């Protein structure tokens, strides 16, 4: 199956955002990170574990009627560092962007250290510094490298 076939299996969108080259199996995490759960009314199409020439298998996420900002998308680098993002207008790709790791992510992850002050019912959002590999709690300094999506607070 070619990439074109794959595209056809997932409906084209008129206006919105297409996030391609997501590691296979991570599409639902992508939606979670972006805070998209369907309650906003936007149309969402997912392709999971579809064949990819460059990645073997990959996921694709299409969100209709919504153009996501660079800042919103940059947090995806935690789980999908090689993702590419196409902003689609009138069925055509209007902008192609690559995501960049942000310096910090706020409120997105919960700290796995149960003795961290962010797990003590205090009025603070979690804040993680993004390292070359993994993330680090700005409060207790715990470093998380494996299974970051297990700690999604969203």
């Amino acid at each position, binding site marked *: 199956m070619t990439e074109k076939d794959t595209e056809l299996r997932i409906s084209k969108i008129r206006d919105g955002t297409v996030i391609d080259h997501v590691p296979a199996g991570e599409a639902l995490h992508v939606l979670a990170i972006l805070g998209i759960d369907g309650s906003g009314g936007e149309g969402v199409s997912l392709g999971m574990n579809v064949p990819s020439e460059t990645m073997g298998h990959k996921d694709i996420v299409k969100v209709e009627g919504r153009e996501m900002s660079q800042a919103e998308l940059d947090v995806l680098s935690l789980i999908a560092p090689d993702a590419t993002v196409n902003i689609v207008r009138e069925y055509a790709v209007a902008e192609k962007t690559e995501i960049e790791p942000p310096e910090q992510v706020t409120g997105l992850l919960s700290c796995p*250290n149960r*003795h*961290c*002050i*962010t*797990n*003590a*019912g*205090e*009025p*603070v959002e979690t804040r993680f510094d993004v*390292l070359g590999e993994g993330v*680090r*709690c*700005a*409060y*207790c*300094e*715990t*470093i998380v490298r494996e299974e970051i999506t297990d700690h999604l607070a969203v």
Partner: protein
Amino acid sequence: MRHDHLLTAKQLSRADIEAVLARAGEFADDPAAHADRHPGALLALCFFEPSTRTKMSFETAAKRLGGDVIDMGAVEDSSVKKGESLADTARVVEGYADGIILRHPSQGAARMASEFVDVPLVNAGDGAGHHPSQTLLDLYTIDENAGLDDLTIGIMGDLKYGRTVHSLAHALTNFDVRQHFISPESLRLPRSVRYDLHEAGANVREHDDLAAVLPELDVLYVTRIQRERFPDEEEYEKVAGQYRIDAETLEAASDDLAVMHPLPRIDEIDPEIDDLPNATYFEQAHNGVPVRMALLDLLLGDGGDGE
């Protein structure tokens, strides 16, 4: 020193450390002669966990500088018992005092509290996190006994949960120091501390046996291995027994070895060592006063040429 708060030893540059130690040296000569430094300054002691040395030496330091303290008292007697958040407690206390000394069982507590206040806040221990004011007095003691450059130090015991160890290890990266970490496998340095030491380019080695490095050490910094870190009593006894030192242990050490301990000790240092010239831990505890005087003097500012 240009910090509003002292939260971790990572904040401290070599120049910061040297400024504190130099000032501490001035105060140590005659601690009672500086009551004009900060007359009327009020320090809030917020200790959510028990403390003897840290709390009393901060109180002594504040009073020696002409100031005074207000003490939150035990958690059982405070609004914390009613469920008040640390953030709220900090904001309330900020209105009463010129500085806050905070000890709390949660890691990162001091950093979080500092985000809610404008007065200087000192982390006096945040769970298994950091204890930077202890580090300053440790450095002062090391400097007096062995010097801080061309130093070989062994740090032994509970390296995983020992906050004094984490802060000391960070601070020593500012100097020419060979750091040897001696512990059971299960209590080795946490990943976050290893990461920082690596980033700082520190000269670090890990061992499970003191004998391998003891002869080359200038300083041996012993910490307590806590019973509650082990699943059962038998396992604790087995492990802790390997990291106790007595006079016989020291026979293999340099005569000039300085044995340090942040205290309280339980039985990891045999009392028979107390009378040997190697025993430095009570001197270390006494140094808490001039060093914390120096720290407060620099944090409170205005009192002279401190800033």
